[in-house]
C-alpha cells in the first residue's frame, strides 16, 4: 500500500460520498413531483425551473430551524437517533459498484468504494442497522406515539429482512 493507493482511496470515497449527497435533493424532487403527478396537483413549482431548487431551499430552511429538545427525553439517545439513521444510509454505498473501472497510469481503478467479497451480506447487515436510530429516537423521546411508531417500524424491518436475506 503506497501513498498513491491511499490518495486514490480517499478521493474515491469523497467523490462517491459527495455524489450520493448530491443525489438526495434530486430524489426528493422526483418523489414529490411523482406524488403530485399521481395525485393530480402541481407539486413544487415555485423555486427554480419546475421547482427543482425546492429541496435545496428546504435544506437551507431546515438549517435555520430551531431544534428543541424536550425536557423529558433521554438526551444522549434522542440526539444519537438521527446519526444512527444517517450513518448506515451513507455506509451502504461502500459495496455498490457505480460504474465500469477506468485506467489510470497503468492500473485499473474500479469505480466502487471497496470491492468486498461479502458485499451483499455487508449491505444487508449495514442497512438493518438503520432501525436502531428509529428505535432510539422513538424510545428516548418519552412519547407513547413515537414509541409505538418506532416499534412498528422495527417489526416491519425485521419481518421484511428475514425473507429478503
Amino acid at each position: 500500500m503506497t501513498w498513491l493507493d491511499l490518495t486514490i482511496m480517499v478521493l474515491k470515497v469523497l467523490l462517491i460520498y459527495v455524489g450520493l449527497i448530491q443525489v438526495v435533493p434530486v430524489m426528493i424532487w422526483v418523489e414529490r413531483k411523482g406524488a403530485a403527478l399521481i395525485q393530480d396537483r402541481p407539486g413544487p413549482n415555485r423555486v427554480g425551473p419546475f421547482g427543482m431548487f425546492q429541496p435545496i431551499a428546504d435544506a437551507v430552511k431546515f438549517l435555520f430551524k430551531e431544534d428543541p429538545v424536550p425536557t423529558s427525553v433521554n438526551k444522549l439517545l434522542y440526539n444519537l437517533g438521527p446519526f444512527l439513521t444517517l450513518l448506515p444510509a451513507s455506509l451502504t454505498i461502500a459495496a455498490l459498484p457505480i460504474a465500469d473501472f477506468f485506467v489510470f497510469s497503468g492500473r485499473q481503478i474500479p469505480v466502487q468504494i471497496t470491492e468486498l467479497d461479502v458485499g451483499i451480506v455487508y449491505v444487508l447487515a449495514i442497512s438493518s442497522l438503520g432501525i436502531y436510530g428509529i428505535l432510539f429516537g422513538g424510545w428516548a423521546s418519552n412519547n407513547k406515539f413515537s414509541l409505538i411508531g418506532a416499534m412498528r417500524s422495527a417489526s416491519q424491518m425485521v419481518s421484511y429482512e428475514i425473507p429478503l436475506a
Partner: protein
Amino acid sequence: MEAFLPIVILLIFAIIVSVAIFVITNVLGPNNPTASKLSVYECGVKPEGNARQPFRNQFYLIAVLFLLFDVEGAFFLPWALVYRESILSGGTLLLALIVYMSLMVLGLVYIFKKDCLRFR
C-alpha cells in the same frame, strides 16, 4: 482486511458530515424554548402518564421464543424445495433434516420443562 479500510474512511466522512449538520443547525437556528415546546409532544393532547411503563417480561420471553422458532421454521422451505430431487439420490438430506428437527423438538421440550409457555 485491507478491503475494509475504505469503509473506515467513509465512516469518518459520514460522521464528520452528520456532526457538521447537527452543529450548524444548533448554531444557526434560534433558541427560545417555551414550556409547551419542552413538554412531551403528543399531537396537542395533554400528555398523560409515562411512555416507559414496565410490562411483564413473559411477553418478551414469548416474543423471543416465537422469533426463534419462526426463523428455524423458515429453514424448512428451501429444504422442501430440493427434497424431491435429492431423495432419489440417497437419504442424506432427510437424515440432515431429522437431526435438525430433533434439535428443534429438543428445544421445545426444554421450553416446556422450564414452564416458559404458561402465562403466569
